[in-house]
């Protein structure tokens, strides 16, 4: 047995064990990408590095053997910097995008390609459920949203962006017109009470998601009717009141209590609300300069001062979002704030604290030139069995009077951009944890790289490969006839099938194992 210390804790481990094994024995987690239990270690990615306190050197934990008397730190500043730099270098050479550009540019990060998928499949209820995971008022936004998502759409460059907003409205109105509009399930009551001041898009959205978590919500508003700016700022010609009422009713049906004609500072005070509630949300809309003085929370230049990650004000248990912190008329952003505040308040109610660093990491592809884009469209068509011919480049929808057929055709134009392993990608997860900046080491080779689709089950996106070699070791161990191998060396090294064979011949037995092991979206299921 070998005795060493890791983060000042002594551990004993069998000779021949690695530092990674020793750390795991202590329950210390170390990120790994090129390491897989049961396969020889390779030490390539270098995100598993730890520091040897005796000489300050940086060692890959997955391969370094534990030596008696070692003093290892897995959490030092040097370790963090090295891991972050390794991730940033990998990202600088990672030709991929975590989310479809439409989803990334949507302030609420609605899963737009998924919505399109369900619309095309005729599953409108599932399409609506997808939308409502991020957006509480889809019909309302379907009328008034400025639709930044459509600016992100790749088809905009080659004909016309998809009518995402109109499709969303179609899905939401179809639901409202059905006999049983969708009501999400709510968890058992938590016994906690939240006061929401303001019934605009931020306040309504916050209530919608807090109610699903089992927290009681009372919405206070100075006006006679709920809706805030949606009702009192948007002309009826732009947003029919029947639609607004219908979506507010759904939130009421979910359990929200509305206290109208109740203004903060007049009928109620923050002190009194704090006594009766476990948390307060200030969703009071844009603040005029006079109003600022009467508010008991700290004020910044544009509105109420908050922590941008947690939406907490300077008062414990008091949160703020929407127009109150960020002037402007973008309803979808206020709606997005509503959901984010709900998540923070839920954490606060459960644990007493709100965790930071929940900022999603989203890598984006550089703007493609025409040639890359043609290749990209070609690959996506193959990958997602997109049958659209020339109509791919032509908008199919009359936004004013969408027919079911046109809706189906329009959704069928979606290229389903974005990564197939958005949620399981280790590179993305670690980039988030170590706050990596993908732009730090900009350089060459971030162009779109052709996707290999010559396998019945999986695709290989070479541009996303980090050369960890796991798939190569898997095919070798399984005795594949061809398998995979490294081709070339240095910066231009690639993983490929030997002797110019197809991916199908390369991965005859191990396709699924390679998908599971690949730490990024390089190899994924079709």
């Amino acid at each position, binding site marked *: 047995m070998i005795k060493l210390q890791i983060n000042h804790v002594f551990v004993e481990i069998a000779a021949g064990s690695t530092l990674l094994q020793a750390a795991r024995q202590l329950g210390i987690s170390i990120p790994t990408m090129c390491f897989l239990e049961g396969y020889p270690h*390779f*030490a*390539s*990615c*270098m*995100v598993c*590095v730890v520091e040897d306190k005796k000489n300050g*050197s*940086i060692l*890959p934990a997955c*391969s*370094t*053997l534990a030596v008696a008397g070692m003093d290892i730190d897995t959490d030092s500043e*040097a370790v963090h*910097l*090295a891991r972050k*730099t*390794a991730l940033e*270098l*990998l990202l*600088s*050479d990672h030709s991929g995008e975590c989310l479809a550009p439409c989803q990334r540019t949507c302030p609420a990060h609605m899963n737009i390609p998924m919505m399109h998928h369900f619309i095309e499949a005729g599953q409108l209820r599932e399409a609506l459920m997808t939308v409502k995971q991020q957006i509480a008022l889809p019909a309302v936004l379907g009328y008034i949203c400025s639709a930044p998502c459509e600016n992100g759409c790749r088809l905009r460059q080659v004909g016309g962006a998809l009518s995402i907003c109109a499709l969303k409205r179609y899905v939401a109105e179809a639901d409202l017109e059905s006999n049983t509009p969708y009501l999400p399930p709510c968890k058992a009551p938590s016994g906690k009470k939240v006061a929401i001041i303001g019934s605009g898009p931020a306040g309504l959205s916050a209530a919608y998601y807090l109610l699903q978590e089992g927290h009681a919500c009372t919405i206070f508003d100075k006006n006679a009717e709920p809706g805030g700016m949606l009702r009192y700022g948007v002309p009826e010609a732009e947003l029919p009141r029947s639609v607004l009422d219908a979506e507010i009713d759904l939130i009421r049906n979910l359990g929200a209590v509305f206290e109208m004609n109740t203004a903060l500072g007049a009928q109620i005070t923050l002190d009194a609300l704090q006594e009766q509630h476990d948390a307060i949300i200030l969703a009071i809309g844009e603040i005029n300069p006079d109003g600022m003085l009467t508010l008991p929370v700290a004020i910044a230049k544009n509105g109420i001062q908050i922590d941008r990650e947690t939406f907490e004000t300077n008062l414990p248990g008091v949160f703020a979002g929407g127009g109150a912190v960020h002037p402007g008329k973008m309803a979808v952003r206020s709606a997005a704030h509503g959901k984010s505040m709900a998540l923070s308040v839920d954490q606060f109610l459960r644990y007493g604290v709100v965790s930071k660093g929940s900022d999603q990491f989203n890598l984006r592809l550089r703007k493609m030139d025409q040639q890359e884009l043609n290749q990209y469209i070609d690959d996506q068509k193959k990958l997602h069995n997109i049958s659209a011919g020339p109509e791919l480049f032509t908008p199919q929808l009359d936004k004013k009077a969408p027919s079911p057929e046109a809706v189906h055709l329009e959704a069928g134009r979606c290229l389903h951009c974005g990564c197939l392993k958005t949620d399981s990608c280790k590179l993305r997860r670690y980039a988030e944890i170590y706050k990596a900046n993908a732009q730090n*080491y900009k*350089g*060459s080779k971030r162009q779109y790289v052709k996707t290999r689709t010559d396998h019945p089950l999986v695709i290989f996106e070479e541009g996303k490969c*980090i*050369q960890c070699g796991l798939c*190569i070791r898997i*095919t*070798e161990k399984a005795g594949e*006839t*061809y*398998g*995979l*191998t*490294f*081709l*070339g*060396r*240095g*910066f*231009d*090294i*690639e993983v*490929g099938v*030997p*002797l*110019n*064979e197809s991916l199908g011949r390369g991965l005859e037995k191990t396709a699924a194992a390679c998908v599971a092991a690949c730490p990024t979206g390089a190899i994924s299921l079709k």
Partner: protein
Amino acid sequence: MEKKSNHIVIDPADIALIVREIGREARHVIPILQAIQRKYNYLPVDALRQVCELTDITPAAISGVSTFYSQFRFQPAGRHRIKLCVGTACHVMGADTIYDAFKQELDIPEHEDTDKDHLFTIEKVACLGCCMLAPAVQIDHITYGHLTSNRVSNILADFLSSQNGLGNHDKAISPFRKSETSGVVRMCRCASCDASGAHKVYAEIRRQIDQHHLAVTLKNVGCSGIAYQAPLLEISTHNGRDFQYGQVTPAQIPGILLRHFRPKSLSGKGRVAVYDLLDRLLTGRVWEPPTHAAIDTRFGADAAYIAPQKQIVTEHSGQLDPLDIDEYCARGGFAALDECLKNRSSQQIIETVEESGLRGRGGGGFPTGKKWRMVAEAADPVKYIVCNGDEGDPGAFMDRMILESFPFRVIEGMLIAALALRAKSGFLYIRAEYPLAIQRISDALAICKARGYLGQNRLQSGHDFDLQIASAAGAFVCGEETALLASIQGERGMPRLRPPYPVEAGLWGKPTLVNNVETFASLPWIIRNGAAAFSALGTPRSKGTKTFALAGKVMRSGLVEVPMGLTLRQIVEEIGGGVRDGKKLKAIQVGGPSGGCVPAELADTPVDFEALKAAGAIMGSGGMVVLDETDCMVDIARYFMSFTQAESCGKCTFCRIGTKRMLEILDRLCAGQGQEGDLEKLEQLSQSVAAGSLCGLGKTAPNPVLTTLKYFRSEYQAHIEGRCPTGKCRDMIVYSITDACIGCTKCAQACPVGAIAARAYEKHQIDVQVCTKCDRCRQVCPVEAVEVG
């Protein structure tokens, strides 16, 4: 990347023959690929498939290995291969311009490497090891040195005429016949002397001896290292007098020979008359008198070159025939081995090595005796010995010269090690770019086998030892010992994490001793003269001697062997005769791409492992390139980074991507597109790459950047401001013609792109939009009217 190719039909019988000759085990993949490439000039994919069917080599291995080593190609090459050296010395002497000139001359399109007629394929190679002839090029097996862009067309013509003409001069070597000798003519025929024209001089001597029936033995000897005098001729007459002639040309040979030797059939009174008669009969003309008087190494410049040196690994240079084992033995060769066999135990041999203080000469400086002891003490009875001859550093050629000139000495060192460690098998891993070294070692091994030094129960010692050559295939990283061992095993040369070190788990998992060529070559001397004699030389922590390849902007370049402790200034100024052309010393690059630039202010740094490290450089394998005031330090840093970046194996993130990002910044700086913050980013990346790379290549790759940043930061700053103070960075300079122009039109005739219009007796002008900065105009201008700024 492999590409589909249908150019060629493969005869399965050819592949089967290759496999039968080399072997079907997976470890033979590199020699098999080399044989296929020799046959077809590239690697046809169908041939590779057949290899997989006939051998244990898997498709993954054959594709992985063949694409790793730069020697292999997947497209048919031209009939002749032009290998243009871009080593350090060649780089500072303008190799890039020469490359452009070749491509222009052969009309090769920008992204291709072969001319339309498939006659020539041009490629840049890391280092030909002919640094003192820089810039140098090898066309097939002929090396040309001291190139200028204007000489390129002549060189191609010369090469082609040599192909049609006289056949292979090398066959003329005749056996040593002492009895007939009234004198000896000695010449080195190593790769770099040949590149200086030694092969032509040698052939001429041979021809003269045969035709005049001279009683002279022409002897091929190990290199004296006095490279700046090559081709160097040494003549010993029967009365014991020695003469040397430097920089000899074939035309001078008849005069030189007849000055010292008489035609055999003649004597006495009639000889002078006969000379003139012979002249007319044999040559039809009176030959030119020798333009060089004999030089004497005991006086003057050459004495200065030789005197401070101490020869241990290069002992008897210029005297020994590299492949004459009897002569080697007569001069004390194999005496050390004999001593070890007869009188010393393993333990005693290792103790001697330990006491000598010898440290690894490959760069790391690990104590050799300690390494031996670790292998000796490893429990596994099967042990291997490996000689690392993968001298890939641009600017280094010591190992090449030692292997070519003293093959028996290296082998003897390995035999002593084998004896001490009880190893039964060993390998010499030698760069593919050193064909002559491979040839000489292979001949020497055959001779040793015939004499019983190798094989079963060698020299009746009861000890078996078998030694073979493992030919490298073009990957600098294989100089790293774990990558080298992977390569011998027939794998991609990717280093692995140490420990375990090769001394515990090396070749095929067995304890393995890996020592450098020079380390092995030091051993016979140490055994013969004793550990104390060796450790009496040098500094407290660095003992003995070290060879250096002295090159660059120095008067006298060549291979030097100096006692440790001599200062860099002594080497450059006393041995090298100072900086060329009256320029000022700016820095001395020591240790190649892993080393650093020691500025002139620190030139008194002694040759000592620790002292060099403290100055930011490393001892390295011994490349020493002298830089003068016209050399741009940012360009030097960029040069080394482009080398290491291209040679990264691609395994570790920091090295694979980090060196690329560093190079991109340096490229930007040299193109005049640097940005504020670039230097800080370079420094930060340097630290990350050094800390986070597994092997020596990545760990030391930032050294040239770090030392130049440390000592020449203002030069970097100037590049950010869009200025190259030395005018070396091509993107930041323009060529112009001054009023000194006499209107001779030479520049206009020389310009390959028509950037200069010919106007007789008028001042010429250069169209900067068209100018490719090839430098030809400046070279031909008789009045130095072409200005670069």
